[in-house]
């Protein structure tokens, strides 16, 4: 319950992560050897071997770069669209009344079901994949941002009103900064959506990427490849999240994000 003392060194954190992952892999190993014993559930070692091979052939790197580019582009676009909409929904009642049916409707429609529509609009190139990822990102950011606006301290807004703030100024200078922690939490949650959706996005006419690798491996029952793709997604997500947190701490520390 005690807040971490700043003194707890970074080293301890990293040691904790390493321990956590080692434990994860140890449990996986034991599960695969003693518990599950399925031809479809390989132990970690062959998977690592396979990953190493793919890395040596520079195949894995290619897929990672292809997928990460799509994920980041979609994620950034989704966030850039979501934050102002969320702020507007949280701040202005007419906007909320008009837009909420839309957001609250579309956010329940899976990206995978939007593939066809996105191809019709954006073709089978990169655009449609990025659209799908942005689509999966935007609603989480909207809902978190709007919730954050609702949580802005009453007196903060009142004080701004008495200082002569226009609605727009309250929006930009009070609601936005006060909502930053919510926005960032929302973006962290949304980032997982972006990663999850890459698999659906690369179901469409894609010639590279981790999702594509996963689908191909499924088709050919290359169990090790499936797990290589899964673990790559998991680790990349983990790392992206860490980098995101570091950036937050470096640039938005004064907004007191609680992460």
């Amino acid at each position, binding site marked *: 319950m005690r807040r971490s003392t700043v003194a707890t060194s970074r080293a301890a954190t990293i040691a904790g992560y390493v321990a956590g992952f080692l434990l994860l892999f140890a449990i996986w190993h034991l599960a695969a050897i003693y518990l599950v014993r399925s031809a479809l559930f390989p132990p970690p070692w062959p998977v690592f071997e396979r990953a190493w091979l793919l890395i040596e052939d520079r195949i894995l790197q290619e897929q990672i770069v292809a997928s990460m580019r799509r994920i980041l582009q979609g994620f950034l676009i989704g966030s850039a669209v979501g934050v102002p909409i969320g702020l507007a929904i949280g701040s202005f009642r007419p906007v909320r009344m008009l837009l909420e049916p839309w957001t609250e409707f579309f956010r329940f429609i899976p990206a995978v079901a939007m593939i066809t529509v996105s191809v019709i609009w954006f073709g089978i190139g990169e655009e449609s994949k990025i659209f799908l990822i942005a689509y999966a990102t935007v609603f989480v950011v909207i809902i978190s941002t709007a919730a954050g606006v609702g949580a802005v301290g009453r007196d903060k807004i009142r004080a701004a009103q008495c200082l002569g703030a226009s609605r727009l100024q309250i929006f930009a200078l009070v609601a936005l900064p006060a909502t930053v922690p919510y926005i960032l939490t929302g973006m962290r949650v949304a980032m997982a959506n972006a990663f999850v959706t890459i698999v659906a996005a690369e179901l469409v006419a894609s010639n590279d990427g981790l999702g594509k690798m996963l689908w191909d491996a499924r088709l050919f029952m290359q169990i090790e490849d499936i797990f290589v793709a899964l673990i790559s997604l998991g680790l990349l997500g983990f790392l992206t999240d860490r980098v995101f947190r570091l950036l937050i701490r470096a640039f938005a520390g*004064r907004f007191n994000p609680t992460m």
Partner: protein
Amino acid sequence: MGFVALEGVGKVFQGRTGSWEAVRDFTISLEEGEFFCLLGTSGCGKTTVLNMLAGFEAPTSGRILLDGKPVTGPGADRGVVFQGHDSLYDWLTALDNIGFGLRLRGLPRSERRATAERFLKMVGLTGQGAKHPSELSGGMKQRIQIARALANDPRILLMDEPFGALDAMTRAVLQAELSRIWAETKKTVLFITHDIEEACALATRVGVMKRGPGGTLKAVVPVDLPFPRERTSDGFMRVFREVHALIHEEIHGGH
């Protein structure tokens, strides 16, 4: 009719646990440039009156006029010092908090800074402008709030126990400053306090409220003494005793 007029104002809160009549039939008229102190026991409805005048909450009965026009919401003409410190912006430094109103008006950075520094000095925090609210003590936060309201130069100042968390000396200094600013700029002030001496030293009139529920204005005592006031003078003592008696009566009437 005065510059500020509350006419039979009442406020009933609808809580989860039933309704509560916080203020009943509150009537007062303030001239422009008046310094009105509002006293009353804890929970009698002082903050509620201030909130309605500020435009934060609508009265459930009666009406509030400002310069003859009904109050419909908050505005830059009425600066507010809040009870509690939630109204400070955690993400801004003390200095930026003070200069926030100027920023809203689009003043250039350097001008903003100069004014903010001036008010920072006034509240005795020179050199501490770079701290964020979470790094300030309770009294320091309150002083930043006061500086922020004053820096914005409103026509009417609504202050809710602004000097409550301050030591006697800092308090005396700020009282003198406020009195000076008021005299120079002829602002209209509504000032809530629990300190009778403070009220008598600053006000042109002192209002005492009846205890709640249904808190209302019980009596208004004019303070016709010259400024700066000598706290040991006979006139001061007389007013002090009058107000003190009113409050004492109020408490013992119901306790």
